């Protein structure tokens, strides 16, 4: 695994004729499809590796600014991320979705590993139309039997990166879904096709299902927004999630006026002098 970003292909807007996966591929073909689709349209084009953009069809799903990719590469430098990891937070609005998407993008882009970002956060129920439109199949539809797991991953403009949408699940059904065998087997199927599964979980203090969902992964990263999250909340989350290995925390939205000599190494790395 190399920290040296690839300069070819990924991270750039797709051409107009890029339509993404359409057919129902088999499990083994999932990653091939997503890579080939992206490669077909993206290879050979120059891009800003530090400003990763994730396109699906004509929709810009996500972009990682250079400051974010730089910081997350610091996280990835140790290379000890498990194959199936999740990101969660204390409360809503701490940037879990953005962090998980950026992390998945970087794993796929830097490590050249097939990676799937999986949205398990049904609590952010009202998605924007342009963000949900590319996902014809969602986890909820598959669980309800209205689709196949093979259609779930949607290839993106980032080579190796696919995305799975959560879909709409009634509030009363979410705890049952989180604990269902169907969901566990769905993730197992995805794990067969992707080296890395990055799950976007609901906030721990907003839903107890976060603990259950994180149990489907090998460990979780806790996203903490600076100046907003209290130490009491973080301690509470760590205590609630003690059944799952904590891979560490990501301090998001950081802005420090501390002198350099008082900063930790990753603050110096991320925030400079």
């Amino acid at each position, binding site marked *: 695994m190399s920290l040296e970003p690839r300069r070819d292909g990924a991270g750039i*807007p797709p051409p107009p004729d890029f339509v993404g996966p359409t057919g129902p591929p088999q499990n083994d073909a999932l990653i091939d499809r997503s890579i080939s689709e992206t490669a077909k349209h993206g290879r050979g084009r120059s891009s800003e590796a530090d400003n990763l*953009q994730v*396109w699906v069809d*004509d929709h*810009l*799903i*996500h*972009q990682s*600014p250079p*400051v*974010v990719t730089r*910081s*997350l590469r610091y*996280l990835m430098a140790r290379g000890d991320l498990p194959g199936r990891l999740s990101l969660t937070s*204390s409360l*809503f*609005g701490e*940037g879990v*979705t*953005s*962090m998980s998407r950026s992390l998945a993008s970087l794993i796929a882009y830097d490590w050249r590993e097939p990676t799937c970002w999986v949205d398990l956060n049904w*609590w*952010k*129920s*009202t998605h*924007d139309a*342009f*963000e949900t439109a590319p996902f014809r199949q969602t986890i909820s539809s598959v669980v309800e039997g209205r689709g196949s797991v093979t259609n779930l991953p949607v290839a993106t403009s980032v080579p190796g990166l696919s995305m799975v949408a959560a879909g709409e699940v009634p509030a009363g059904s979410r705890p049952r879904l989180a604990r269902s065998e169907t969901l566990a087997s769905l993730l197992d199927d995805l794990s067969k096709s992707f080296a890395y599964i990055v799950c976007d979980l609901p906030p721990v*203090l*907003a839903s107890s299902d976060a603990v259950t969902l994180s149990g489907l992964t090998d460990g979780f990263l*806790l996203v*903490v*927004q*600076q*100046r*907003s*999250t209290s*130490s009491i909340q*973080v*301690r509470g989350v*760590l205590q609630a999630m003690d059944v799952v290995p904590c*891979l*560490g*925390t*990501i*301090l*998001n*939205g*950081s802005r*420090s*006026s*501390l*002198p350099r000599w*008082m*900063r*930790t190494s*990753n603050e110096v*790395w*991320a*925030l400079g002098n």
Partner: protein
Amino acid sequence: MFIFFGKPLLFLIPAVVVTAAGVYVASSEPSEYQSIGVLSISSETFLDTLSGTRTGTRSFETPAVTTARQFNELMQTDGFAISVVNGAGLGDQRLNGELTLLDVRANTYAAAAGDTIVEVISVAGNPEWAQKLSASGIATFKNFVISSEASGTDVAEIFYDQQLTTYKLEVDTASDALQAYLADHPEPILAGDERDIGEQLEIEKLNDLLARAQARFDLAFDNREAARLATLQSSADIDQRFRTLDEPTAPDVPLSGLTAMLTTIIMFAVLGILVSMASVMLVSVFDRSIYSAHDLDILGANVRAVVPRSSAMKVDHSRRLNPQPVTSSVPIRSAS
């Protein structure tokens, strides 16, 4: 520390405000004038040697220290302090409340400036008052020492004065009685005649009375003179022991206020810094927000990454318990 460095100017406001208050207080303090009288203290004088008084007075303290201590102790008594004020001619001001004994005690004191030099210092808002209080302090102290050391001779002098009056009356009475008897019984005119024996005995008796009265008067007079001499001797001795080298003068310029001003300002500045530190600590206690990676390290949460604030990530919206739509800040790229 993050709380302080996050908004350093905010937390420095108390320090700045309190220091500014200190500057105002220091600059608005009224001017004070200081007058100093210098006394030379001798433990032995030539008069002591001649008269043999106050022999064998030895102390571990220097004369100056003893005198200064004695002066300062006396200033704590109402009688001495009032005498100083009255001696300075400021009795009316004391009665009017313009000058209090507390002020006088706090601002009139003695300090040793060597083994034999004592400075009597007085500080007042009025230069003349300072000079008068210092001079009165010296004079009152001298009078006190004189009166305490010559108190025995004073009493003797008064006693003998009273006795002299009585004895003078007895002498006059005896003299008058003798004169009257002689006038009533003149000497015989004829030569060779003598007074009869009765007259001679009466005249002799009157003469004896007069002689005894005169003798008592003379003895009392001698004693009173001895007492008066002793008083004069003590006074002269004390004048010699406490010689005023420099008379207190009315100062033309106020005390140099630079030191006092700096002291006041520094005290206020330190107080302000303490207030700032207290406010930082108070905010730190009540604000449990995560400010830095170090805060997470304290909780045992291994910080894997620090992501700077980025408007493109849209993480600035408020945290909440209820879900809201996740929006992208990037517009949809239109298909061409």
